[in-house]
């Protein structure tokens, strides 16, 4: 497939592995921010092929995973209502709330629908004026422009029966929170290419300066990741800490200004709770005053709902990168993609699910058995 196969070439990959090996003189710890990158790394076994000492920590960039439990519970409370069509991206449906998930609600008769674009939810609202259509707006800066467009479109069509349950989060504040943690081991970041395609990378320059940490804007294909790792390792070896762009075919320094305008018009920056991490100041998007009428939380009176995480789940440590899934006592036993306790086991982009699906069962058996 054009524009994909070129970035999966085994011979070029071997060459990049060799270059990384040649560049490394001491151990380094890198974090890939985005769940899509984690997915590629684990599926291709890239982390296990890196030279000794180059360690990848999997970051908090899975939108499904960082959506707080109480927001899932709010979604469930809204979806239970008779008058509601609850529309969501597919992989939010299996995320467990405190007592059930959206798939099980659907089996009991709730009108829960998978949509592929938030504009599909607006279309349902236009077609069914007798129903309240609620879209579950989750994700990072990547999905924010499309979700903003959905609100603008509903506004343009004058649809009183459309609203959004918003759980939008932003990458730079999360990176800062990780770097501020006393047990932080991250020495360089691979920033998420898609996020930067929207936002550009100017926001990352002060982070690189202040924490003296290399940040490489990186794509999602195997060769993108290898090149991103190589660029980060070279910076570390040289003692540099700059923002570099590996994903030049998609990302410009200033990003996509039209997409940014749409986000700014519909959303404002506010504090957000991250599942497993807690509240990070200024790390999320909420609807601006102009569009507050489209907020599903007050409309369905779920704003006060709170929830408690499963005690065995170490999702917070996983998302911060301080522990790996195989460190968890529930991993692979109590907690599997079939019976997930925490969100990182749900989405294919979640670190726990990525590990599990790649057959990483327990530390000793995994690699030994596979080799």
């Amino acid at each position, binding site marked *: *497939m*054009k524009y*994909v196969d070129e970035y*999966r070439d*085994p011979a070029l*990959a071997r060459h990049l*592995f060799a270059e990384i090996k040649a560049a490394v003189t001491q151990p380094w710890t890198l974090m890939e921010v985005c769940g*899509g990158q984690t997915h590629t790394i*684990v*599926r*291709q*076994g*890239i982390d*296990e*092929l890196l030279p000794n000492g180059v360690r990848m920590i999997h970051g908090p960039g899975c*939108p*499904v995973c960082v959506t707080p439990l109480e927001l899932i519970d709010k979604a469930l409370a809204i979806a239970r209502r008779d008058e509601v069509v609850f529309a969501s*991206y*597919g*992989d*939010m*449906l*299996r995320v*467990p709330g405190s007592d*059930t*998930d959206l*798939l*099980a*609600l*659907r*089996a*009991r008769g709730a009108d829960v629908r*998978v949509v*592929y674009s938030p504009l599909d939810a607006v279309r349902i609202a236009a077609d069914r004026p007798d129903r309240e259509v609620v879209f579950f707006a*989750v*994700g990072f800066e*990547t*999905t924010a422009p499309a979700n903003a467009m959905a609100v603008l479109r509903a506004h343009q069509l004058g649809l009183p029966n459309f609203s959004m349950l918003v759980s939008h989060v932003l990458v730079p504040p999360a990176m800062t929170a990780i770097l501020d943690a006393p047990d932080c081991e991250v020495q360089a970041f691979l920033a998420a290419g*898609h996020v930067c395609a929207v936002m550009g990378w100017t926001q990352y320059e002060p982070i690189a300066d202040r924490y003296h940490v290399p940040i490489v804007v990186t794509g999602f294909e*195997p060769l993108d990741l290898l090149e991103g790792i190589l660029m980060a390792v070279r910076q570390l070896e040289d003692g540099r800490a700059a923002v570099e762009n590996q994903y030049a075919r998609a990302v410009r320094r200033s990003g996509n200004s039209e997409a940014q305008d749409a986000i700014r018009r519909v959303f404002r920056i506010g504090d957000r709770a991250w599942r497993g991490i807690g509240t990070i100041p200024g790390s999320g998007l909420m609807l601006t005053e102009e569009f507050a009428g489209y907020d599903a939380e007050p409309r369905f009176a779920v704003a006060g709902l709170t929830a408690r995480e499963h005690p*065995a789940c170490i999702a917070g440590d996983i998302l911060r990168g301080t522990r790996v899934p195989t460190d968890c*006592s*529930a991993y692979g*036993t*109590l907690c599997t*993609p*079939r*019976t997930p*306790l925490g969100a990182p086991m749900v*989405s*294919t*982009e979640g670190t726990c699910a990525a590990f*599990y*699906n*790649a*057959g990483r069962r*327990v530390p000793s058996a995994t690699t030994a*058995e*596979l*080799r």
Partner: protein
Amino acid sequence: MTTADPTRGACPVPLAEAEKVLLGHGSGGQLSAELLRDVVVPALGPAAAETVPEDAAVVAVDGLDLVISTDAFVVSPLFFPGGDIGMLAVHGTVNDVAMMGAVPLALAVAYVIEEGFPVAELRRVTASVGAAAAAAGVQVVTGDTKVVGRGAADGLFVTTTGFGRRLPGARVSAAFARPGDVVLLSGPIGAHGTTILSTREALGFEAEIASDTRPLHRLVAAMVASAGRAIHVMRDPTRGGVASTLNEIAAAARVGVEIDEAAVTVPAPVAAACELLGLDPLHVANEGCLVAVVAPEIAEALLAMIRSTPEGRCAVRLGSVVEEHPGRVVMNTLMGGRRVVDMLVGEQLPRIC
């Protein structure tokens, strides 16, 4: 190292799932296997629990090895690029019979029709059943029609039952795979599932892709004539895709399966659809290819023979059967890494970004 949580018990089956059947129970993955194991098979007596689950069964009658299979078709939409529910119902059952190394002899067809369903569409489907059966050289000999009230069915469901006779020299079962065997795949994968999803959700790929639905019994007959008992397993990777089929073989034969990512052939538009939707082509349904596990000494010759047939032009050597990691399928990735290829858990859910 199981840490039992007193608040949930050691076996954390979510309550809601204990009460209701989920769509994921029909996906052909782990949930489907659990439904069979826990609900369907135990009701059939102890002998049923002992047998390896297959899509068709051999019944010996007066010295003849007869093969029987039945399948219900509920595809939505009823018409899609490359086929329709009628054609699919014929091909699906013809192929299930064929995968036992058999030649299909006769079909029975049952239609469950929702009140209000347009007669013109029903005609299109019945004509398609007739045409597909004629093209496959199999007679539809009996059947049934039922009409249910509005809302009690989604337009039209079709059930076909196939009856056939095992070819002389054929003896295949998922349990017969053994270390050293070669895994062959007769064609490119992923076309059927992505076509259905794209058409159902109007995603816009349908202009470029079409279902691969086709009868495979002629290919099977040629393979059996060529290699006989050196063919140990034949399976068509329908729901749950190639990943589920290989996992079922690994589990039934208590062997490991190793495949090469470089050998997996996915047509470019199908690969593009899967990339965009976040689907793994190995989990996507096929209706026109088969997986064969064969003895190593005949593998190359058989592969060449398969490639000379119209159904198998793009056949590949996908991998091999090994003693290591029994019950598990491992893939050598393009990058030189290794990963386990698991069964689909439940419903295939497109991911966010």
